[in-house]
């Protein structure tokens, strides 16, 4: 094989990603001529579906966008609505929303590490094949995922599409006994999470340093979840309301998900971007676990995303324990809100990265307009940029099967949730 052949690689249905997409690569004269991450899952029109609905329905409706990260959609939505209604739910609600989000980070990250990403690095076609050789690793992953789900259930009523969240707070406060029981389980899992960080860092991850822009929320005191300014490692530092001034969504013909660009260029959101920008906000035990891996953060190697994900599981366990240890049932699980006309913004850190919402309401609190910018659509242009860099570094003269495997590994490393962004994948490579 040489670089002068015309090669067309086609992955008609990309496996081990959430949703439906395809990849097409055309190689001519030893260079990538065309590369398209084709997202063909039909658009879901959630934003239009929200129009005319009451603000009270929004948290339950947006939770339906994703079965893996429903809490993120609820969090961005209620913060935007509370901004419009000038509601201040207070410290108990703030703390419990953070604990709920910890549950989602734990389950979503544990799922991605074990079900979707690790089989690539260890050379298995699936978690089922991997489980036969690494049963303890898979058992640990499933146990962490289950624990995250149970934490979501504590505050959300159920683990998939939770129904416990409302503008102003929660519908129900858990009892002391319920909180005590899960806090003990979270505390007991901490050594497992710490071991997961070391295990992820010891995986045979490809070495591929790239130049990319990391974007995440940044908070004065905390590792970011529900609050903060939008920052980058190139000096961006803006209020969430100013998102449109620097970020632009564009339509591309080969995708039913919009592409987002920062000042006209691709950028990264998600666990690696968060750790790159906020490692100093991690508590000492997580920083120590990361330092012990020998990997320097900020990292330019996108494959360190799996290590960042594991570190965030470790963090989320510790953070949930910190919050829940001090639990007292409140007199009321939230405050009443008074709807009014206005415009509000919510921007929170979904497991896959920045999730930005904008709502416009009328005087009765009915939604006049909604905009939702999910992390996967923000990462799409970066994934295409990464594929070009990664495959050229890998060697375009490699056999088609190897190129295809590397391309799929690159894509899965971003944990794309195509269902969220369109709301699956085919690789086609043509060489020429």
């Amino acid at each position, binding site marked *: 094989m040489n670089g002068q052949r015309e090669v067309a690689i086609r992955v008609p*249905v990309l*496996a*081990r*990603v*959430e*949703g439906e997409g395809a990849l097409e690569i055309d190689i001519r004269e030893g260079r990538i001529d065309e590369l398209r991450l084709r997202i063909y899952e039909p658009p879901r029109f959630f934003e239009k579906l929200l129009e005319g609905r009451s603000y009270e329905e929004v948290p339950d409706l947006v939770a339906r966008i994703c*079965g*893996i990260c429903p809490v993120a959609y609820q969090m961005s939505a209620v913060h935007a609505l509370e901004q419009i209604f000038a509601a201040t739910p207070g410290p108990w609600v703030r703390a419990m929303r953070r604990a709920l989000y910890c549950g989602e980070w734990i389950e979503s990250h544990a*799922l991605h590490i074990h*079900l*979707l990403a690790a089989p690539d690095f260890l050379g298995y*076609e*699936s*978690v*089922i*094949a991997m*489980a*036969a050789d690494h*049963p303890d690793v*898979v*058992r640990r992953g*499933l*146990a962490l*995922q*289950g624990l995250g*789900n149970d934490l979501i259930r504590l505050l959300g009523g159920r683990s*998939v599409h939770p129904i416990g969240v409302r503008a102003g707070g929660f519908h129900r406060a858990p009892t002391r006994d319920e909180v005590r029981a899960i806090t003990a389980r979270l505390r007991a899992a901490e050594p497992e999470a710490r071991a997961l960080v070391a295990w992820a860092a010891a995986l045979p991850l490809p070495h591929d340093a790239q130049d990319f822009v990391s974007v995440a929320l940044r908070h004065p005191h905390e590792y970011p979840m529900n609050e903060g300014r939008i920052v980058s490692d190139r000096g961006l530092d803006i209020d969430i309301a100013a998102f449109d001034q620097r970020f632009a969504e564009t339509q591309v013909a080969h995708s039913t998900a919009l592409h987002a660009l920062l000042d006209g260029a691709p950028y990264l959101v998600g666990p690696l971007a968060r750790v790159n920008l906020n490692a100093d906000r991690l508590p000492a035990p997580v920083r120590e676990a990361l330092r012990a891996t020998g990997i320097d953060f900020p990292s330019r190697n996108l494959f360190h995303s799996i290590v960042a994900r594991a570190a965030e599981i470790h963090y989320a366990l510790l953070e949930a324990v910190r919050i829940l240890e001090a639990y007292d049932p409140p007199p009321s699980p939230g405050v009443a809100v008074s709807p009014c006309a206005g415009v509000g913004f919510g921007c929170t850190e979904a497991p896959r990265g920045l999730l930005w919402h904008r709502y416009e309401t009328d005087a009765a609190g009915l939604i006049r307009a909604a905009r939702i910018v999910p992390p996967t659509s923000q990462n799409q242009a970066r994934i295409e940029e990464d594929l070009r860099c990664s495959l050229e570094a890998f060697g375009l003269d490699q056999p088609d099967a190897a190129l295809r495997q590397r391309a799929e590994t690159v894509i899965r490393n971003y944990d794309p949730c195509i*269902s969220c962004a369109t709301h699956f994948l085919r690789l086609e490579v043509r060489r020429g």
Partner: protein
Amino acid sequence: MSAVRILGIGSPHGDDRVGWAVVEALAASGALARHAAEALCCDRPGLRLAALLAGAEHAILVDALRGGGPPGRVRWLAPGELAVQPDQLSAHGFGVAEGLALARALGTLPRRLSVIGIEIATTRPDAPLSAAARAGVAAAAAEIERELAGGRAAPPA
């Protein structure tokens, strides 16, 4: 811990509830208590299936089935009848076949496993169980009770 665990698998969508309805029927008839069996209604358990099976001597799974037969027909499935498509696995695509394969790889598959499918035609959200599905639920509950009473040997896992 009960030696026999019955898992009714389904979702709230119309006749996809048949697995849950079988568990409810066995509880209501006193069959669970008579045979010291435990039972759970599971909403699309996916990856959790391996954990839900752990520790049981004999597991009976009941789920809705689209196998081309008449709605309401009860089928006892042989282990090889459920096909896994490993290269398609994602959290959204992780079904009963994949859950059982993962449990087998992890060594948590019970010594005896019975998988029962009830043929259904529709899964309309919020629709009540159809007459055919109700008949299938009654038939499946009766067959499971005979199984619990030792009247029928489950195929080995």
